[in-house]
């Protein structure tokens, strides 16, 4: 009797751990709880200056850019591509918006702000069309094709800002990177974009066709899938997401810094996608996973700050944690740890506590 009960529990447990979002969620919750001993009021949310305030709110606030960029990156990676130019596109978008606003006589005019945003997003879409053209039509490898804009894009942004940090003082524009109805505006933008992307890919056939192209490009072609058009769309969408992230970034800073806006964001975005369970080899993607992956990275950055890691050690600490997360997600590594454990030689150090989490099936690679 007891054995059957145990069997059922084991089976339920296994079914649960096989859920795609299970392990990313566990890691996120663990990271959040980890903060409690260091910051007892970590989960407190207060009201200050008419808007919400607290560590969780700050994670959401600063999570806007990584989530948005990772969202677009997810679809690109699902087609077996990659987009390295997202940071540069952010810089371009912010630069265009700030240029339009700072050149206007009345910076607070709504029409000026809307024109600025429209032109900025148009610039982002143009960048996406360029990437899409290079990959889908010219047949350049995605990593090379988008490397071009990674380098050239920042140059374009600097031309737009004429090499200065371009400041603007528009109040309506500040709302994007600020607060609306006591909540960070970024939260609304992110929720809207995530919902839109989910609907776009899962309520239409776009998701299926994206996965089909990423899964087997030649078979898709022979089944009549217009893979060029699909690839074009995902690169444009990815650039659009980066463009919106660029607007948020410049708005929250009150200006455009062509050199630093979105610097290294492509790496965070790729990492978030992979942590969220979308394999770099294409074929399957998880939007929910990507959101959680980006939140894990943002929580990690906040944690480093709140537990008081010295500033010089930030990068090293972050890298170490990311390595551990990636190892955890690697089936080959987990199999090794399990095998080591079976030999009755428990692996030393932190890995020991990590080991029970090993039989996870978050799919990092097929």
């Amino acid at each position, binding site marked *: 009797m007891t054995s059957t009960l145990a069997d059922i529990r084991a089976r339920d447990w296994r079914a649960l751990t096989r859920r795609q979002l299970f392990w990313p969620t566990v890691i996120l919750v663990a990271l959040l709880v980890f903060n409690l001993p260091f910051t007892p009021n970590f989960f407190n949310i207060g009201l200050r200056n008419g808007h919400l305030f607290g560590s969780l709110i700050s994670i959401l606030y600063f999570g806007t850019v990584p989530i948005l960029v990772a969202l677009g990156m997810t679809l690109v990676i699902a087609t077996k591509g990659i987009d390295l130019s997202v940071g540069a596109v952010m810089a371009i978008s912010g630069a265009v918006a700030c240029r339009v606003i700072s050149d206007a006589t009345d910076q607070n005019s709504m029409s000026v702000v809307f024109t600025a945003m429209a032109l900025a997003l148009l610039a982002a879409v143009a960048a996406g069309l360029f990437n899409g053209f290079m990959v889908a039509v010219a047949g350049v490898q995605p990593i090379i094709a988008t490397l071009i804009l990674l380098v050239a894009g920042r140059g374009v942004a600097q031309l737009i800002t004429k090499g200065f940090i371009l400041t603007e003082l528009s109040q309506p524009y500040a709302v994007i990177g600020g607060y609306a109805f006591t909540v960070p505006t970024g939260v609304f933008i992110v929720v809207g974009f995530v919902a839109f992307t989910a609907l776009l890919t899962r309520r239409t056939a776009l998701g299926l066709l994206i996965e089909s192209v990423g899964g087997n490009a030649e078979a898709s072609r022979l089944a*009549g899938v217009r893979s060029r058009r699909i690839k074009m769309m995902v690169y444009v969408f990815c650039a659009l997401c980066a463009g919106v992230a660029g607007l948020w970034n410049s708005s929250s800073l009150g200006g455009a810094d062509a050199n630093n806006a979105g610097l290294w964001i492509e790496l965070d975005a790729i990492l978030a996608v992979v942590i969220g369970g979308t394999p770099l080899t294409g074929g399957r993607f998880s939007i929910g996973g990507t959101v959680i992956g980006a939140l894990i990275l943002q929580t990690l950055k906040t944690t480093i700050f709140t537990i008081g890691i010295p500033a010089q050690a930030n990068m090293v600490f972050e890298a170490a944690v990311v390595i551990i997360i990636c190892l955890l997600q690697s089936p080959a590594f987990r199999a090794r740890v399990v095998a080591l454990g079976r030999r009755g030689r428990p692996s030393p150090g932190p890995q020991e506590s990590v080991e029970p989490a090993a039989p996870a099936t978050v799919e990092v690679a097929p």
Partner: protein
Amino acid sequence: MAQDAPVLTMTGISKDFPAVRALDEVDFRLFPGEIHALLGENGAGKSTLIKVLTGVYELDRGEVELDGASVRISNPHHAQQLGISTVYQEVNLCPNLTVAENIFLGREQVSGPLIRSRRMRHQAAELVAAFGLNIDVSAQLGSFPLAIQQLVAIVRAVDLNRANADGRSRTGVGTKVLILDEPTSSLDRDEVDILFGVMRRLRDAGVAILFVSHFLDQIYEICDRMTVLRNGKLVGEHMVADLDRVGLVRLMLGRELQELEKLEEHDLAGTGTTVLRANGLGRKRSIAPFDLEIGAGEVVGLAGLLGSGRTELARLLFGADQADSGKLELRGEPASLRRGPEAAIARGIAFCPENRKEEGLIPELTVRENIILAMQAARGWARPIPRDRVDQLVNKYIAALDIRPADPEVMAGSLSGGNQQKVLLARWIITSPTLLVMDEPTRGIDVGAKAEIQKLVVSLAGDGVAVLYISAELDEVLRLSHTVGVLRDRTLVARLTNGPDLTVDQIMQTIARGGQS
């Protein structure tokens, strides 16, 4: 020639793979100074035998003797040391290096830390000249046609053995056996002549050459002896002069006695209006210009050996490859497939490719997603097929084709070959095609599934679908087709009307002789 003792004797060679016995008690021998053809259709065991011989695979049972001494070939390097050299279809050299550098790659002549380039160039020039080649050895290998690159590979392989034999390596010997795996498949006639010249030279020097080719004419031109494999078994070793082409084709194809359900005689006369008409359609180096007509409800079977252009012909009709000559008419109207498969599908053409895994299935997607893919692609991404319609279609065809497991949500990659093929068929059937092109739909699947697929073809034709059916099994082609097109050396050589008089033997004769004479 070749009356001495064999240089190589393989006895009772067996090799098992999961679920397949690739080689079953095969005997094989090679004599010094002969060119020996190894023949067989896909899956006959040719590559496995070569891989056992070159140490890529370890044999499960059997004995290999080289010069009378029993050897156990453990890896390709060992094979090389024993004097067994291989040149593969794809040249495994560096196209960015010069001919001389390639020949001496890994054993460059040095004085101290410096490479003696001039001396290497000089020696390389002498070597290629000795093979009757007149090329500039300081030019990049990649700048030469494929045939020359292959010859350089042969020069390198043979010289490597000679250098070993000269005592640099104590275990080394000169080339005893040279294996040429499909060296001519991408060469044109002049290039083949150059290659054959080199092969004859080596043969006369006493090297045993194992030659694999799909071109029967070439076998009869250059080879002295041949060994035929079928389904992993040895079916015969003959002197080329003693066996005519018909006999050879019969040996290669065999006549499979299958317990297939007898298909009811379908109405051979009942073909309707012309669906497809090809006039001089062709593609260079792929398939010679051909004329073909397929009517509604007609099954046209294509017969021919592997590499005879069956697949190439099919791919032109689907726009998977672009024709560079000729015209195509669909239902009486000129049709261009310049936009590729997309355009073909829009005109009602469906295509089940030969390589299910690489060109058909999307393994990461579910059975449901794979089945609706072509239909969905034709509708565009913005008009998803309503979910209840999807479920209805998918469930209907999972049941009708008996796809197992009968679960639309399993990954297609996890299905068996036969079930994967049924998924692909379902994908096309729901698009209601007017022309269905099937390339080897029954290869590698079990007899039961085979019979079901054949029945399906008959019933589709009964519903007025035009079918182009490619199969290596002549019985199958004969059973299903109204008309049989015969291909040989990338040319459609004959169109035979099926009837009580047409037999498998006649098809074999046509394959062997070409045309009806």
